[in-house]
């Protein structure tokens, strides 16, 4: 009886028109009776080893509220492994220091470069490209310069290669 009811329940929960139909409450409701009810007497040997599946967000997004994505345009950073079309994860909460790859707002546009503060004593900073064909960007007091966060990972769909 219970099993028949359960089967009916499961059937009803089938995807509708390709859209998976499971809300949070449903997931909660489903979990326990499914294992204990259906397999009474034959507990799944894997049950004790249940673990959340790996999640890229967990690995790469350290501060979800402070992170956003930026798409790279151009070749200025290819030496650092950042190519045209790559998606950078940018984190505003990370502390920034010399040598970090950052996204900065410079005179009206965004740019991805390596921050070089070694020239700070001479009252300017440099944003270093990683491509000999590009010149460093010199930032002094007259420039509009706002660091928008540190690049913490780079993402690329390799199917296009």
């Amino acid at each position, binding site marked *: 009886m219970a099993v028949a009811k359960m089967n009916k329940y499961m059937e009803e929960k089938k995807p509708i*028109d390709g859209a998976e139909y499971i809300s949070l409450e449903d997931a909660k409701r489903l979990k326990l009776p499914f294992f204990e009810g259906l397999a009474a007497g034959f507990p799944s040997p894997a049950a004790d080893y249940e673990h959340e599946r790996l999640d890229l967000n967990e690995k790469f997004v350290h501060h979800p509220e402070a992170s*956003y*994505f930026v798409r790279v345009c*151009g070749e200025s950073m290819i030496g650092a492994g950042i190519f045209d079309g790559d998606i950078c994860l940018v984190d*505003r909460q990370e502390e920034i220091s010399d040598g970090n790859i950052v*996204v900065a707002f410079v005179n009206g546009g*965004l*740019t991805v470069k390596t921050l070089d503060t070694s020239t700070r004593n001479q009252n300017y900073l440099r944003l270093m490209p990683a491509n000999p064909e590009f010149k460093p960007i010199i930032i002094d007091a007259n420039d509009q310069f706002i660091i*928008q966060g540190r690049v913490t990972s780079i993402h690329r769909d390799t199917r296009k290669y």
Partner: protein
Amino acid sequence: MYAIIDCDNCYVSCERVFRPDLNGKPVCVLSNNDGCVVARSNEAKALGIKAGLPYYQLKERFPNGEITVFSSNYELYGDITDRVMSLVRKAVPAFYRYSIDEGFCDLSGMENSNLKQWGEDISAFIWKATRMPVSIGIAPTKTLAKMASHYAKHYKGYNHCCLIGTDEQRIKALQGYDIEEVWGVGRRYATRLKTMGVKTAYDFACHANSWVHATLNNVVAMNTWKELNAIDCIPMDNLSKKKSICISRSFPGMVTDIDALRTSIANFAARCAEKLRRQQSVAQIVNIFIDTNHFREDLPQYWNMAEERLLTPTNSTQQIVQTATRCMERIFRQGYHYKRAGVIVMGICPDNGIQTNFIDYDAERHEKMKRLDKVLDKINREYGSETIVLGSQQYSKPGSKGKADVFKDSIKHDFRSPCYTTRWSDIPEAT
């Protein structure tokens, strides 16, 4: 103690998150349809731009682009403010979001820490992480906290956080505060109170309990009086849910056709149902209104409203849309040029304790509609709002192509910013 966290000039600040060049410059955000100014940066306020100023007047006064103008982009504002609220939620024992740009924190157990410093720190942290400036008010009651946040916002010296900790601080705060600005008072009561000599929050708080009871005799006023006197009495869970939801729009042109009007009403009703579901509520009353253009004195004028009380409260898109369109068909008159219409749902209560009416209630149908709505919400959440709609939401003229045709022109947003954080197509680009 309670804290309220309030985003400063919320919509403008959201627009500045990815446009840091606009910090320190006058910025305005327009209402739906680019009708009038709904949000202003401090610089825009300083230029004398008032909230509600029609956009065409703004353009006349500042024809040379001195002011950066944005159409409202609720998708962006929703995501940026979600980030802010999420950070606050992680930092306090209990948190209740009150609206898109503010939330209350229960600071029980934190009384012994330096709350003023705590407030300044969290404000600085939120600014660093999200680029949203927030003001924080801390006080023994929510009404006082709201007052404190007002001080924090308007006086730089507070460094984004104002604490009403001692009775001395409370009295000083009350004395400098116009009764009209007090949370929960409202303009109508304020006018009445002012004729009775109550000008500041302090005047009101100093009256005896019995006076308030005799003159105003209403629960909200009593609660406000208590809260101003540091007696905590407005429960958190009374705050979070709205008592009525209204979706209304002015049409960019004018609507004469019943089918076009029905389509608009159906869309407003569907939005109401979606909002009800989002706050896990149901509504009992569906009210609609239609209105002609009062500025066109050359045209005949007509205004009317209709409402229907449902036997069983609901949040089903289908049911609310059906009821709303039925109401509209009752009051529609041919031959008028309609400029504005809206749907209001009222009698809102939580959806777990629905009082069912046995004659009307059909459990199976109810379950089915619930499932349909869930799928609807899920699809629209994942693929963008209005990916899937009811048939009645997409009437179009013969020969045109469905919803897109009628609605493409129905909402104007000429100056909308990209949805930087919610659409892959809109993420910022960097060289």
